[in-house]
């Protein structure tokens, strides 16, 4: 599903590389936590998977494709098989909940009948049935994140990338979001989640990948958060 071979990434005008010689495999259907302090390279790791950046050296394979050799115009097709969720939800404030979710299907040209069927279905799945007509501003943070997850999942991606999805949420709400992500993972979708949330990682007991100053320092099955602040 995801494979890093000796990947390094440096940004121009920065003397320290963001990632140094990272190698790992993530199999289909896995649930992986990505931990590490700020600036440890988590975001760069995720951006490489999304091909928002290209690796400076080494190979990144996602969904069986070598991203270095993927031409620019094919990137959108690759991203359609990926779902993304962010800390700041990234919803369109002037569209309703249903429109926000439908947007992900509209931009890839799904027929309208299919959209009309899929949107209520996925909103039910994330527990927002009956809130289709609300605006994002009227929803709580947890509900907004559920909308974002619904949007990420509506196209049934093979891989879900979550960048601190609970970062803006209180612990109780976070638990709800994690249950949701776990459920999505059980449908066979691979989930890679970057987080700072110690409780969640410790509770879930999933694979943990820890980065420190761009280096892979720990790759542990059924791991815990590991370090104290």
């Amino acid at each position, binding site marked *: 599903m995801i494979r890093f071979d000796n990947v390094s990434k440096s940004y121009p005008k920065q003397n320290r590389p963001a990632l140094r010689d990272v190698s790992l495999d993530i199999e289909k259907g896995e649930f992986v936590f990505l931990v590490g302090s700020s600036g440890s390279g988590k975001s760069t790791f995720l951006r490489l998977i999304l091909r928002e950046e290209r690796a400076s050296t080494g190979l990144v394979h996602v969904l069986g494709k070598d991203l270095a050799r993927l031409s620019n115009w094919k990137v959108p097709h690759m991203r*359609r098989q990926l779902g993304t969720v962010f800390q700041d939800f990234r919803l369109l404030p002037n569209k309703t909940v249903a429109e926000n979710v439908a947007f992900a299907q509209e931009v890839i040209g799904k027929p309208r009948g299919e959209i009309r069927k899929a949107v209520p279905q996925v909103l039910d799945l994330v527990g927002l049935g009956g809130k289709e007509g609300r605006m994002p501003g009227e929803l709580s943070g947890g509900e907004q994140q559920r909308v974002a997850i619904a949007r990420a999942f509506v196209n049934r991606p093979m891989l879900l990338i979550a960048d601190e999805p609970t970062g803006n949420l209180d612990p109780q709400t976070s638990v709800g979001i994690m249950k949701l992500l776990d459920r999505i993972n059980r449908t066979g979708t691979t989930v890679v989640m970057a987080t700072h949330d110690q409780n969640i990682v410790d509770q879930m007991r999933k694979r943990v990948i820890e980065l420190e100053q761009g280096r892979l320092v720990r790759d542990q099955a059924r791991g815990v958060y590991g370090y104290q602040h």
Partner: protein
Amino acid sequence: MRAQFVLSEIGVGLRRNLTMTFAVIVSVALSLALFGGALLMSQQVNTMKDFWYDKVNVSIFLCNKNDATISRSCGKGAVTDQQKHQIEADLKKMDIVETVHHETAEQAYKLYKKQYGDTDIAATITPDQMQESFRVKLKDPEEYQVVASAFADRDGVQSVRDQRDILENLFSLMNGMRIAALCVMGLMLVIATMLIVNTVRVSAFSRRRETGIMRLVGASSFYIQMPFIMEAAFAGLLGSVVACGFLLLGRYFLIDNGLALAEKMQLVNFIGWDAVFTKLPLVLAIGLLMPAFAAFIALRKYLKV
């Protein structure tokens, strides 16, 4: 791609950027109106050249009774019949001359009356004030000098005039106007392009949230860029429609009504409506494509895909 979705995105984009859109429309309209005007002007010059060069050649004006007192070259009095015959015979002997037409003072007077009608100037003119003349059509209008040197100093000849000179002045004036219009057009086009680039930049910035999300869910770059390009093309199209309006109104008010040049300058054959209509598709096409292209270039710089 669904048309309705794209169209609603365009509408939102244009409304959000109303002042800038308006500026784009106005500048595109002005530059294209000038462009069309320049095209029409050069066509007008060509029509007039075709028309006049065929008719007007060298005129040999003969002295009449009045000229004998005013004009130095007519010091020996009005032209005599014998002189006239001599001139005509000599003209006909020349190889470069194609036809010679003798215009009597009476004919000149009638033509003058016809051209200027009942105006005040025409009322003060009498037939004896008009000059008799030979209208000489040359095989090659460039050989005017030969005729001029042969006949200018003859007794009874008041002057030899290459009537192209008068027209050349007019044509060079019109040509100058056309070039001026093209220069202003070029400037306006630069302004329009910069406005479009800036509009797209602002538009891309204000919609970076949407485009960011579009990118994440895997929208193709074509899909993401389309609304911006369509926006620019739509504004450009509105501008070029306005420009077409300017051209049509321009012809209507300059030639037919308003200034009514067609009535005042009956000797000039003006370009017809068909000439205007044939320019409109070009104006519309440029108005549509130029902004779209400018937007496309601007997007490469300001919209990360």
